[in-house]
């Protein structure tokens, strides 16, 4: 087991991963803002603000990436991304995970608004933020038993991710059935070996399954 509590003794790669996963977990701010600010300013205003922020930030990030590939990187931003856990600076390579994360959760939010039910956003958000974040952290630092069909994942990580996603979804929505379905789907997608960014695949698959549950199963209230 790696010494998770002694951060100074961690190797550079471990520290980078720890920072990346903590930044990933900070995405919970999105859900918390939606949850609390909606009751103060209304769902529409908060959603508009969040969507505008994500679209502007994605455009800004794309400009940054283009400048980087053109050989004119913005050094201060590069240092900030590295502080947040991105492997920036090691190679001139583009990293789009942050954009995928923002755009997919915002797509789910807009679909939820169209349907008039924010449960989708809370559950899909919990699956990708808490599920992916905790499974990554637990698996990397405490994982021992590798999953046979995907050796880069561990049983401990999968269990931690599932529990975190379920708890998060349940605390936001109070619906155990939907939260269970969302957490199970998120964990299954997380474990499936795929080259696609999991921020995109987890969010969209959970949203799709919850939509199907809404249409076919009548699980939604």
């Amino acid at each position, binding site marked *: 087991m790696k010494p998770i509590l002694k951060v100074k003794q961690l190797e550079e790669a471990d520290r980078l991963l720890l920072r990346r996963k903590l930044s990933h977990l900070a995405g919970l701010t999105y859900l918390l803002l939606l949850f609390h600010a909606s009751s103060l300013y209304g769902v529409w205003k908060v959603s508009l603000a969040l969507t505008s922020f994500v*679209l502007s930030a994605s455009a800004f990030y794309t400009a940054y990436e283009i400048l980087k590939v053109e050989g004119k990187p913005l050094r201060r931003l590069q240092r900030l991304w590295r502080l947040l856990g991105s492997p920036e600076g090691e190679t001139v390579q583009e990293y*789009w995970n942050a954009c*995928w994360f923002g*755009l997919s959760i915002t*797509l789910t939010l*807009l679909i939820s608004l*169209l349907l008039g039910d924010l449960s989708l956003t809370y559950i899909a958000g919990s699956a990708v933020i808490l599920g992916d974040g905790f499974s990554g952290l637990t698996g990397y630092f405490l994982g021992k038993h590798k999953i046979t069909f995907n050796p880069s994942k561990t049983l401990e990580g999968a269990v931690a991710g599932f529990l975190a996603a379920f708890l998060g979804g349940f605390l936001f929505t109070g619906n155990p059935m939907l939260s269970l379905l969302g957490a199970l789907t998120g964990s299954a997608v997380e474990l499936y070996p795929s080259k696609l960014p999991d921020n995109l695949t987890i969010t969209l698959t959970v949203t799709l399954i919850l939509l199907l549950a809404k249409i076919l199963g009548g699980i939604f209230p």
Partner: protein
Amino acid sequence: MRRPLKTVLLGLSCGLAALAYLTGGSQPNLAILLALNLSAMVLLAAASLQS
């Protein structure tokens, strides 16, 4: 990026945006946001494919 791929991606982006706008129905503001978001995702997919 090759020209046919660019055309396909641009077409897909516009198609998705139009679809989002049409399905928005009585909520045009929401539909515009959805269209923008979908277009951004398609363009991001194009950028990822290129890199």
